Structures are given as structure tokens and as C-alpha cells.
């Protein structure tokens, strides 16, 4: 009978947790359930060995610390390598215990992600945490928070971030007419003002750069063999703080039509407002992104300053007007 994959993986984890000194690959393949049934003592176990390599990766992806130990007598000899999972590094540490309130909040946090690897990862984390046996407070009712990731570049970047692999992609910088190839060591992927940003080292520019995922054109490829040292801890928080600083340094004054959608919605984000004059002041991070948003309001909003934003909105409105005017022009 064929042993199911999870049965083989479970048996492998149990066997490697129970050993102090580690098991040789030959010992694993010849005794652990799921491998042993297919093991040929006379050799020719290449398929089984490849299976074991894939299983090892799969187990490590789940955060299980599967270690390789070299033989002190025969360093460099692959056949003498031993494998084990140190129990101290496997168990969730004692200080990591959650209150029923925290569990309810974590369950809601796990609900946030839609699609993408993030929902799968959240689900696995919650299953592990439920293994602690703490009963959550009744679920937080009345909320259905949802966050989608719509940038195609997100998944490959997150995976590269995790594995610390260099990536290559074409990037269209605003103001440039054609995309240019960038090679980047990804340090952080952050969501700021509703947009995903990649922060990392631009190899050709030899400096730290931040990119908008929405301006990445086409595929993100991993540069084979190029890995990098882990970035400073908390780099993601630092870059968020930088983006926020940038946002606060950009100020726009807008005239909004009384009673309009623009007045109600943009007004909520205003840092200053003169209701009589119908003028509000807002901060923004990126001219192009903010101009897109303002263009949607059509005649309900008019940019007073800065000039760059004013021009950007005007250009966008002209683009939309021209694209839609052509066929009806003659009938006017």
C-alpha cells in the first residue's frame, strides 16, 4: 500500500526529533516509514534520495529546524552526514503563550489575507498556535477585514525576500519613457498608503532604493546563485518611517466642491481645512499615485499647488478626455 505523503513526513519528523546524535541518510531511508518500504538494500536508491531531499526542504519551509551534522572523522563526506531536529529549537518556547483575547485577535489577523501565500502561511501559524490548547475568547464579531495583494510582483518578491535571493526585473520609473532592468537584493516589502513598495540594494546603482511594485513591468526573476547577508533587523519599520517622513514633507492644497464626494472623502484626510473657502491641505507620498487618485474626482477637486501635482492631474484628465472624445467629436 502506498504511504500518504503526510504520513512519511510525520514519520520523518518524529524520527529526527527522537535522535540525539542524528541519523545517517541510509538509516533514514532504510527504516523510516514511507521510505523503508521502497528501500533497496542492494543500492540504486537514487529516486528515494531525491525524495528525501525534497522532503527535507518541505519540512524546513514549515519552520522546522532540520539540521545537518558533519562527521568529525569524515568531514565533507556526504554519506557520513547526520540529520536531526533539536527538540529545544523545535518546541514553541515556554514564554510564547497567548491569552484568550490575543488568540481571538490572531484569528482575525489570519482572516485579513485573501489569496496569496500569506493566507496559507497565516493558516499554518494559527494551526500551530491552536496546538497550545488555549481556548480563544469568542471570536471578534462584526468585522470582516480583507486585504488583497494585486501586484503580480508580490509573490516572487516575498519568496526571494525569504530566501535572500537577488532578483532582476524591468522597472518603469515615472518620467522615463522605457522600463530599465534593475538587479536588487530585496530587504523588505511594505504596504504604505495602499501601495506595495520594495526596498533593497540596487546592485548597479550600488545603493539602497525603494521601488513601487505597481511599476514593475513583467516578470520578477531570481538571479541564480546570488544570495546576500540578512539586512539589519527592523529594516521594514525603518523604511515605513522613511516613507512617512516623505509623505509629511509633501503638502498639497486642494479646492474641493462643497457637498461632493471629494469634499467628504478627501476632507477626512485633511490636516488643515478652510470650509468657507472650500480649500483643504493634505499630505501625500508620491505625485503620480496621488495624481491618479485626484483625477478620479474629475471636476470635484482642483489642485492649487504644488505645480508638479497640478500638472500631473491636468495631464491625466487631458489623457482621459482625449481617449474618450475621439469618436464623439464629430457629432457634437
Amino acid at each position, binding site marked *: 500500500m502506498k504511504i500518504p505523503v503526510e504520513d512519511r513526513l510525520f514519520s520523518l519528523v*518524529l524520527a529526527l526529533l527522537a535522535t540525539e546524535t542524528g541519523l545517517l541518510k541510509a538509516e533514514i531511508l532504510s527504516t523510516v516509514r514511507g521510505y523503508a518500504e521502497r528501500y533497496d538494500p542492494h543500492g540504486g536508491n537514487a529516486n528515494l534520495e531525491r525524495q528525501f531531499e525534497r522532503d527535507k526542504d518541505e519540512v524546513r519551509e514549515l519552520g*522546522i529546524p532540520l539540521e545537518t551534522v558533519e562527521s568529525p572523522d569524515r568531514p565533507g563526506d556526504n554519506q557520513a552526514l547526520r540529520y536531526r531536529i533539536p527538540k529545544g*529549537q523545535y518546541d514553541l518556547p515556554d514564554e510564547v503563550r497567548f491569552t484568550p483575547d490575543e488568540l481571538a485577535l490572531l484569528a482575525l489577523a489570519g482572516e*485579513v489575507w485573501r489569496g496569496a501565500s500569506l493566507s496559507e502561511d497565516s493558516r499554518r501559524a494559527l494551526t500551530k498556535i491552536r496546538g497550545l490548547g488555549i481556548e480563544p475568547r469568542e471570536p471578534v*464579531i462584526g468585522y470582516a477585514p480583507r486585504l488583497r495583494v494585486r501586484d503580480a510582483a508580490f509573490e516572487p518578491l516575498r519568496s526571494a525576500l525569504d530566501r535572500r535571493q537577488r532578483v532582476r526585473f524591468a522597472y518603469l520609473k515615472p518620467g522615463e519613457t522605457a522600463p530599465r532592468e534593475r538587479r536588487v537584493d*530585496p530587504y523588505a516589502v511594505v504596504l504604505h498608503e495602499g501601495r506595495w513598495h520594495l526596498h533593497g540594494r540596487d546592485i548597479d546603482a550600488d545603493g539602497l532604493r525603494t521601488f513601487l511594485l505597481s511599476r514593475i513591468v513583467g516578470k520578477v526573476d531570481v538571479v541564480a546563485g546570488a544570495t546576500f547577508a540578512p539586512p539589519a533587523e527592523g529594516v521594514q519599520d525603518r523604511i515605513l518611517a522613511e516613507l512617512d517622513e516623505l509623505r509629511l514633507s509633501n503638502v498639497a492644497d486642494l479646492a474641493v466642491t462643497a457637498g461632493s464626494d471629494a469634499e467628504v*472623502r478627501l476632507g*477626512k484626510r485633511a490636516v488643515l481645512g478652510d470650509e468657507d473657502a472650500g480649500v483643504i491641505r493634505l499630505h501625500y507620498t508620491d505625485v503620480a499615485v496621488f495624481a491618479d487618485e485626484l483625477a478620479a474626482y474629475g471636476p470635484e477637486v482642483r489642485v492649487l499647488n504644488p505645480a508638479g501635482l497640478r500638472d500631473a492631474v491636468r495631464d491625466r484628465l487631458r489623457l482621459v478626455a482625449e481617449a474618450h472624445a475621439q469618436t464623439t467629436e464629430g457629432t457634437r
Partner: protein
Amino acid sequence: MTQRRAPLRAPDKLVFLLSLVPYLIEQQVVTVAEAAAHFGSTDDQIRDAVRLIAMSGLPGDTGTYQSNDLFDIDWDAFEEHDEIVIVHHVAIDEAPRLAAREAAALIAGLQYLAALPENADSSALASLMAKLRAGASATPSGLAIAEPAADSSLALIRQAITGGRQLEFDYLNARGEAGRRRSDPLRIVSQDADWYLQAYCHTREDVRNFRVDRMSELEVLDLPVGDHGDLDVPETLFQGSSSDLDVVVDVAAEALPLLADYLADSSTQEVDGRLRVTLRLAHVHGLKRLVAGLPGLVTVVAPADARQVVAEWAASGLQGYDDVSVP
């Protein structure tokens, strides 16, 4: 509310097995139904997992699985009373650590929830995130979400929901019509940066979605909400209806995901390097805002009056800038 469950893949099943064991040991005696409720799984998933665990163990010194090296359960209790009692366990007794990426996903989810009024105490959230970091087998990868701007209306809405009180507010709909609405608030739904209230609207006598940023002058009334247990509250925010408008547009391929909520069907056709798709919207007022907000990426093809509305919307916006001539 029932949720559709995707079939579990082998790594998910492994995580489930490794988490179920310490739970069962800790509980000592637990029914299949209780365990299923705890893990949010089906009864059968629990039974299958228990059978597998009960036959698993270590190859032992002899390389053969001997009974002392195997898990064992009280089979009578299991077969006859649907109760799980682990009487012998090997190798594991604690829940496994989180993978770095698993911890990162939950931390980012919590950061998104920072906007909720419940989480005004950010130190509680910070300590929870610190626990997740401590529980990860490696430093969680650099994923982070800036706290979305919290709309002060959320706290009042929340107060009405938890207190079972009616909520009154001024609302400006997408057509530009303003009015006072009285509602029985049901739940707060968000989609990315946008927050909505799903409520039974007394004015419309039906369930409606209200954009929180279009609500103002909120007041929690002293009136209790009605019983809406029989109401069908839609899971998705955007519901098609027979009065909807179908619009054919050409869209740049990279912008297609941004229109996903509005696609009438899955058919696309390539026209001059762009994708021709049909959108379904409630009315042209939504369309003109959508298209003007994606300048250069989406062009309305038909019907002609929808195209005209978009053209006029953009042209009248352009008129605000008197230094240019309108095309």
C-alpha cells in the same frame, strides 16, 4: 456562517498532525467534535489524523516499529464514544515553532488591524507581535504594513454594533445624492484601504453597503436593532443586479487585476495590444470615477453614452485648470 475549505496539501496536513498531538496530550480526554471545533476542521479530518497518529512512531533501535515506540490511544473510547485519549506518546509533546514567513504573515495582518478601535492600545498589539517573533524559528522576513489612517467613525459604528443599537448618519452616495440614513449596523467590512459598513437600511428596507468615508454626523441611537437572522448578508461587497450597466472597455494587461471586482465575465479579447473586457457596474457615476482614476490604462469602448459621460467628467475636471484648452 459556513466557509468553503480548500483541500489540505501534504505540508498543511503535517502541520495539523504536529499541532494536534500536543493539543490531545494537554487535553487528556477530548471528543472528536471538541477537537474539530478547536482547530476549525471537520470531524472526519480529526478522525483521520488520530488514526494516523495512533499508528505512527519511531523506527527504534532495531529499525522496526515496535509497539513501545509507537503512539497509542484508547481505541475503545475512540471507536465507541468518539473520544480521544492518548495513552502513550513519543518524540513530541509541544507545539512547533512558527516558520519565519508564517510569523511575518500574522504580524502584517495585525498591523492591518491596528486601525480598529479595539486596538487603540498599541502596546497590547506590540506585545503580541513580540510573542510571534519569539515564537518563530528565524527572524520574520521584512514584511510590514503601515497602519492605515483610522477613520474616527469606526469607533462609533463599532459601539453601535456591539451594543446592538441603531445608527443614524448623513450619507453621500456615489450618484452624489446626500441624505440622512437610519440603519441597523451588521458588520464592518474592509477591502484593502477602504472600510464599509454593512447594515440593514431602514430607508431602503434592505441590506446596504455604506462607505465609511462617505458617512458623517454619526449618531448611535437609543433604539435596539431588529432581528436580521433571516437576512442574507452578502459575503462579497460588490453584488451584481439586473439594473446593472454593462460596459465594454479596453484595458492595459497590467491594470486588469485592478478591475477584478467589476468584471462581468472572464472573457478577454486582445485588441491592439490591450485586453477588451466587459465590466458590470451599478451606474455610470461609478464608471467615470473608476476610469478617470486609471488614466491612460482604461478606455471605454461602448456604450457610447457611457463613453460620453467619462469624456465629460474628465473634460469638466480639465476646465478647472483655466490655463489649458479643452479638447
